[in-house]
């Protein structure tokens, strides 16, 4: 199971933080800070894995990847393979790249909703369900279309929207 997904920038600001086990928001912020403090002290060219029992409980592992100004972090337990998780980050980044073409941190900042859509297609309730970027993008595009469609009737009075159908 995946316990959490985070994207932090190199100053420690979270750009995305999703926790698959419920915990109160203060705890979440605490964990984000904890993860950041461990990450920022890591030298370059070392392994991408960390043991973070103190933060997330026993048998938790963390894999991170540093892309430009962002740290992509996945926290998981013993049911996931470390290298596969590393690969999953790769999939996530590739998908974002295809979505936004040459994605950078700003894209992620301003497209909060879309990012979540992408992530939700890949990780469902803590389990990895989709690993193909193409499939994910297909689904995300569909979702965007649906949202746009539902938005286009926002300024039209109800009677007309009723005629148009959903």
């Amino acid at each position: 199971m995946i316990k959490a997904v985070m994207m932090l920038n190199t100053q420690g600001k979270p750009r995305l933080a999703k926790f698959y086990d419920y915990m109160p928001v203060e705890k979440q912020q605490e964990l984000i800070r904890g993860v950041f403090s461990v990450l920022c002290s890591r030298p370059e060219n070392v392994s991408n894995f960390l043991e973070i029992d103190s933060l997330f409980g026993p048998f938790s592992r963390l894999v991170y990847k540093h892309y430009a100004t962002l740290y992509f972090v996945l926290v998981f337990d013993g049911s996931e393979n470390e290298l596969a998780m590393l690969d999953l980050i790769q999939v996530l980044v590739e998908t974002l790249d295809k979505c936004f073409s040459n994605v950078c941190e700003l894209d992620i900042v301003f497209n909060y909703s879309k990012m979540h859509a992408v992530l939700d297609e890949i990780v469902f309730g803590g389990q990895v369900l989709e690993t193909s970027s193409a499939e994910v993008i297909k689904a995300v595009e569909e979702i965007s279309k649906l949202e746009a469609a539902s938005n286009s009737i926002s300024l039209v009075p109800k009677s007309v929207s009723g005629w148009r159908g959903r």
Partner: protein
Amino acid sequence: MSSSSTSIMDNLFQRSLEDLIKGFRLQLLGESNFISRALEEIRREIKSTDLSTKSTALHKLSYLAALHGVDMSWAAFHAVEVVSSSRFQHKRIGYQAITQSFNDQTSVMLLITNQVRKDLNSANEYEVSLALECLSRIGTHDLARDLTPEVFTLLASSKSFVKKKAIGVVLRVFEKYHDAVNVCFKRLVENFESSNPQILSAVVGVFCELATKDPQSCLPLAPEFYKVLVDSRNNWVLIKVLKIFAKLASIEPRLGKKVAEPICEHMRRTVAKSLVFECVRTVVSSLSDHEAAVKLAVAKIREFLVEDDPNLKYLGLNALSIVAPKHLWAVLENKEVIVKAMSDEDPNVKLEALHLLMEMVNEDNVSEISRILMNYALKSDPLFCNEIIFFVLSACSRNAYEIIVDFDWYVSLLGEMARIPHCQRGEEIEHQLIDIGMRVRDARPQLVRVSWALLIDPALLSNLFLHPILSAAAWVSGEYVEFSKNPYETVEALLQPRTGLLPPSIRAVYIHSAFKVLVFCLGSYFSSQETTSSSLAQESSSGSSSMNAFTHGSILNLVNVIERDLGPLSETHNVEVQERAKNVLGFIGMIKQEIAEKLDLQDNETESSRVTAFMEDVFSEEFGPVSATAQEKAGVPDGLELKENLVDLEEICGEFLKPVESESVSYTDKISFSISKLRIRDQQEASSSSSPPDEASSLLAEHRKRHGMFYLTSQKEDPDSNSTHSDYPLANELANEISQDPFNPKRKPNQSKPRPVVVKLDDGDESRITPQAKKNIQTAKDDESLSLAIQSALLVKNKGKEKDRYEGNPNSGQQEKEESSRIENHQNSENKKKKKKKKKNGESSKHNCTNHDGEMK
């Protein structure tokens, strides 16, 4: 019309999430100000009746909650409203909010059931997907129960997009509502036949989690898993199946035999490192008895270790440490790599290497390895340095210092550790110094020597982390003063001015040790006076060959020095220090007169010699290690009432002496009551008293039966103290009574000194340092009813399959209950099919859309 126009107005001027984010980045006010203003806005907007306004507000709130730690639980009801909108965008926002913030405490959880049900039945698969995600993240027992039928339907959905998520949600539903297992299990398992790799991946993922929680219940499905293991070419699927087998094989060893070969096949064939690693991990953790598999796995580990990629190196070392306990040869083979890894820049790698190094330690190489490690420690950063020290300490002290042959060397090593600049393991070193002193008689001279070196160094006194070590050094110097070369110097060291830097508790130890030294010196002096011509060396025990002659002058000097140094301490604030100082000064007061006047000390009856003899007696009893269970063995002393008084208390102040949670009575009242009421009564009275609770007395009787010899005699005509003492073994005796470790002559020819005797306790010898738990120990709670549910579902399924066969279902003949024969059958049919070149039911990777052959180098 007017309502929609106001909503248009609301909407037009409402800040959207994008606006919020932009505003955030441009704001100059300070983040928390900005957030509180935004929150105010949100609170206003969210109350609007217009769903668009509401949902935008909710959206902003979710954003703030996730990234800025703002609490959003108060908006739960609004989220319920938003989710009921027919517009997809609103629904999405609503579900996101719900998924993010709802938990067991949310009171409005019940309100979403119907909405979720509606959405699960929706024709729009994206709405279904939203509802499924919600259920999988926050599903409660009630939700799971109410929505099981819908989940059941969705498991058979024709759209794989929906089906895979339905499979995913099953995990949570099963967990929260066990009866769902009966309903959904069959459909779940049918998906093993699926040709869609994502579906298969989902199913296998779910079973991986279930197997982690309770492997026993998934055992009957082993044939299905085996089929997947052999046929699938999808790495994600294979990894999960391997994890499942790792769990299953640890409880069912026969399974190991069957899967070893397919796993080795995968290891040889695949290029995906993740799969190789998982195979290796499975082999070394659960199939460690299969030599061939282990050999192959170790070869693969070696490949990982020599790669440049730090990840592979780290994982290789990790796998090696799993295999180490049973197959030390694997570790020894890779010794050079491990030692090299100790100086890697990656802290993870260093730590793993250290751990492996310690696995290789045995009594022949312990000194060599410790030497290497100490050198590393001096050069390392504080964290790693302390890890090294910790590992050395724990390895050497394991099993009462099993691997140590030369204690003199080890004791000096402990002293060396104290001098390492970053050392923070003072407490453990302290414990070991004292422990060795108690257990290993022959090591005491060296202990005293090392302690002396530590005590006389004034620089060490200022290092906070070393204080525990100094405390031990002081204790040792006092307790085993007979081995000391120069007790005067010891006393000077113990009372030097810089000891003021020590915390009071340790200072007290110093003072008390000085006391012991003083008594020893006086005792030796007096006894030397008696025997006019014989040298002191005969009197003192072995080891203190070069002791100064105790002249009158030196003794007088000693007494004066102590008096001078301790004098000011008798006024100090700290009670412990003051008390100790006063003890010593009091003693000195008793003897000083006579010493100063140099009375005829050949007379044994002088007060000072009597007093000295008395104190010597006090200090002569030897300390031994105490068993951790010693306290239990000491019986409840006669006459101690544990229940009786409290019953009385109940009568008198029952109305306000409630169980602990009550805050109505102040603590002091309670205490004063209990103290006044506590009387120690006779055993007789106790046994005949009103109504001691049956449980307590029966427990006591049982305890007495088992440990009768430790109880004092119940007859009250005991006053003969001798008899009670003989019934009641001395604590020391108890601890020492068992197994003195026999010593074996060394194999190594150049080991001149035999290993000294180490006192070990039979039981209750706790190791203080608990070894770090390794990853493959399962700690998941076993959910009894869930596993029962799964097992019963499996029985049903098996019966169902039989029926199928009789109806002519072209399923391969796997109807026997025994999984091994089922697997054999499968293997046979596999072979037949291979011969006929018939393609298997299709988890072939040609349909594979995942790209995991190119993964991770």
